[in-house]
């Protein structure tokens, strides 16, 4: 039998063996051209890659998009928006017209030219699509039409002011596709992506790998990028490695140069392992947050929600599960997003078991069999609906909270379902608790969850609060950044105060890489940038 000690030896071995610490001193080397970078992608066990930026909200695929597609604008480290394929822009006083001046030297991978008509073709595809609505539709909000004023000038018209537009245009989901390729491939563009990015598509094996190669013409990286001109790497190959232990092993055995989605225990180990490096950066995100189904009793009662939350010790849960590698979240929006209320909400509530029990007693929920509270013969059960398994160790967190909740008499169970069933349950309101996160650079992401007429029927949050709705609508229309931030901060404060949302942790996007890999950066959104990456000889 393998004892715990043997197992520890086996597990520990990889960290001890490649001890080449003294051999490689860090020195500023000149970048080397050529080579193939192999990247292990935390891509889940999907059988089909969707490389259509306008139609995938799946973060792992969006991590590939930035290498193939460019955006009109770029998000700078200070959260402001800078020029990229668009060199400058003007917003009309009524905020309904955005006029962009475009670069004239940009060529798509298929040799066609990027111009105003290309921008129009892309936005019209999302905004006035003939087929089914694409995932990127909410990113362009109240889009009406696009007008080509000159080959290098384009005007986007909105039905009403939509302040998130500019920041959203920096998203991977609004990457610009070659219109010629769109016409040629139609929906099959998802398997034949053609953009203007630093790498062009070569081939894919569904669910297994995506091969890209250098775009030798690339000369339009945004100002301030770590590198200008064509990429150093000759080839860039993404290998989908869904299992985290395998991903880590693939880096350690140097079968790939780097991999993302590194589990906490390995983050700690990679940070100090010689021959390897860890890259970590906050993903701009509507944090992983759990939502009580406020349309259903007893969760429609604010006090019961307070009792639920007062039973939780999130500091302990996040510290134990993530081993201190990731911060606990206080606000719905991750700390770096414009208008995040994380700092101001810090310490806004604390665990209080006595108070939780007191509320439940007062509400008539009496302790029954096995310590679970009951009222009128009904037990205080909480069904946590889930579909993604233990992604980012979320189920570990829920298991941890389950034990905390049991102390005040809640009985939490995990209801794990295939995606189809899960979404049906959300649509029908047939759940007590569920959680989700959404990557986004703009606070308007809150509207997708908490604005009753702005969200899908299968939304995980069912908030319906007149104040919050009003602030979220006002935030969309407001042109002045300071006033705008004020609306979102208020909305976040009330979401937390009324326990409409219980933010859990701030996700850091993590990459473990061999020391051979240089120049790989994580951009402001929290996505990998391979343009300036190179491999040491």
């Amino acid at each position, binding site marked *: 039998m393998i004892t715990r000690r043997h197992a520890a030896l086996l597990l520990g071995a990889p960290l001890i063996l490649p001890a080449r610490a003294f051999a490689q001193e860090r020195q500023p080397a000149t970048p080397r051209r050529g080579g193939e970078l192999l990247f292990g992608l935390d891509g889940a066990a999907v059988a089909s890659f969707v490389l259509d930026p306008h139609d995938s909200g799946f973060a792992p695929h969006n991590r590939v998009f930035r290498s193939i597609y460019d955006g009109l604008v770029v998000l700078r480290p200070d959260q402001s928006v800078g020029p990229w394929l668009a060199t400058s822009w003007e917003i009309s006083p009524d905020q309904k017209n955005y006029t962009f001046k475009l670069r004239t030297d940009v060529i798509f991978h298929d040799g066609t030219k990027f111009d105003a008509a290309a921008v129009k073709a892309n936005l019209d595809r999302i905004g006035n699509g003939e087929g089914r*609505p694409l995932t990127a539709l909410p990113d362009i909000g109240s889009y009406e039409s696009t007008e080509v004023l000159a080959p290098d000038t384009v005007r986007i018209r909105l039905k009403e002011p939509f302040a998130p537009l500019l920041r959203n245009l920096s998203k991977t989901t609004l990457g610009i596709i070659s219109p010629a390729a769109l016409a040629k491939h139609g929906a099959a563009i998802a398997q034949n992506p053609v953009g203007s990015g630093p790498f062009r598509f070569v081939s894919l094996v569904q*669910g297994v790998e995506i091969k890209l190669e250098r775009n030798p013409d690339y000369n339009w990286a945004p100002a301030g990028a770590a590198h200008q001109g064509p990429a150093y790497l000759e080839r860039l190959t993404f*290998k989908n490695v869904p299992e985290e232990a395998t991903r880590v092993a693939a880096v350690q*055995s140097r079968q790939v140069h780097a991999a993302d989605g590194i589990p906490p225990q390995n983050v700690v180990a990679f940070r100090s392992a010689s021959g390897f490096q860890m890259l970590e950066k906050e993903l701009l995100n509507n944090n992983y947050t759990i939502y009580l189904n406020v349309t259903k009793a007893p969760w429609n009662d604010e006090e019961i929600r307070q009792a639920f939350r007062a039973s939780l010790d999130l500091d302990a849960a996040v510290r134990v599960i993530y081993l201190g590698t990731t911060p606990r979240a206080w606000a719905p929006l991750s700390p770096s997003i414009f208008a995040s209320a994380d700092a101001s909400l810090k310490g806004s509530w604390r665990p209080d078991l006595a108070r939780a029990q007191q509320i439940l007693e007062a509400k008539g929920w009496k302790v029954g069999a096995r310590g679970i509270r009951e009222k009128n013969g009904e037990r205080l059960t909480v069904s946590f609906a889930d579909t993604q398994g233990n992604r980012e160790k979320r189920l570990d967190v829920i298991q941890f909270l389950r034990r905390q909740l049991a102390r005040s008499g809640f009985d939490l169970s995990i209801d794990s379902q295939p995606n189809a069933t899960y979404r049906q349950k959300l649509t029908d309101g047939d759940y007590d608790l569920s959680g989700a996160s959404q990557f986004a650079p703009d606070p308007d992401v809150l509207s997708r969850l908490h604005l009753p007429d702005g969200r899908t029927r299968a939304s995980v949050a069912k908030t319906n609060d007149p104040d919050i709705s009003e602030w979220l609508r006002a935030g969309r229309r407001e042109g002045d950044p300071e006033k705008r931030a004020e609306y979102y901060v208020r909305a976040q404060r009330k979401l937390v105060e009324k326990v409409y949302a219980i933010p859990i942790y701030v996700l850091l996007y993590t990459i473990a890489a061999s020391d051979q890999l240089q120049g790989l950066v994580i951009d402001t959104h929290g996505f990998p940038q391979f343009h300036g990456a190179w491999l040491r000889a």
Partner: protein
Amino acid sequence: MLFIFRRMAGAVFVIFGTITLVFAILYWLPGDPAVLVAGENATEESIARIRTLLGTERPLWAQYLDYLSGLAQGDLGTSFATQEPVTIRLWAQFPSTVALTLLASTVAIVTGVLFGVIAAVNRGNRLDQAIQSVMLFLTSMPSFWFGILLILLFSVTLQWLPAIGSDSFAQLILPVTCLGLIASGRLMRMVRNSVLDVLDEPFVTALRAKGLVEWQVLFRHVLRNALIPVVTLLGILVGELLSGTVVVETLFARQGIGRLLVDAVGVKDVPVIQGTVLIASISFVIINLLVDLSYSVIDPRVRVEG
């Protein structure tokens, strides 16, 4: 000949029953495929349009008959999720799973039979005990755990073999070992027991008395008689290996039909699920047919009775 014909008729019935059952289960499960295909921002009209496009708004029996008539013409339908023909999606993944399953079966058979015979011949002594403990250990291993141990040892520590991918033979070695060795444990115990049973029979003593060398007794006579129960188990094992690929393919980041199936169930891609189940049940039925036929090769009496 009649025997084969009868078995074939039975096989068709089994396959037919499987796809009918899966069809019923899929429609009984909650969740509308059209809603999933339509995506997050879909309006009611676009969902309705997609429902018509997919044909899921028609009554269940109409969809079922349609599927069967398509099947009769060799048409497995079109994937809801990607709009590609199901056959194309299946053939992209199937060869990799077949290679994995067949090689794993070979590993299981060779190690299982070999160690089973060695253990039986050395009944009760140290070698027998050692083989038995190792095999018990392997049988009790969950594949994901054994797989991770193999990766840590052979990929990370020794750096001999690749942990991920499905392009080369080297990439097959670890997943095949993982699946094959786990299965070999049960096979070995079966072989050991049935060899021991046969060794006790009077005809073995008679053969030995006749002056036959021990290896002739063992391989010509004992093993042949001991194989029937083992072959039966083999039919079941191959089926288990086929389903075991779901975990192993994900663990070793390989292509394969297992992952395709899991993915399709998640988005309720009915044609793909049906196609995968169909191809898996056909493989299973063929293997069991081969098993049944092999009885008559091993033991001619089956032919007469069959």
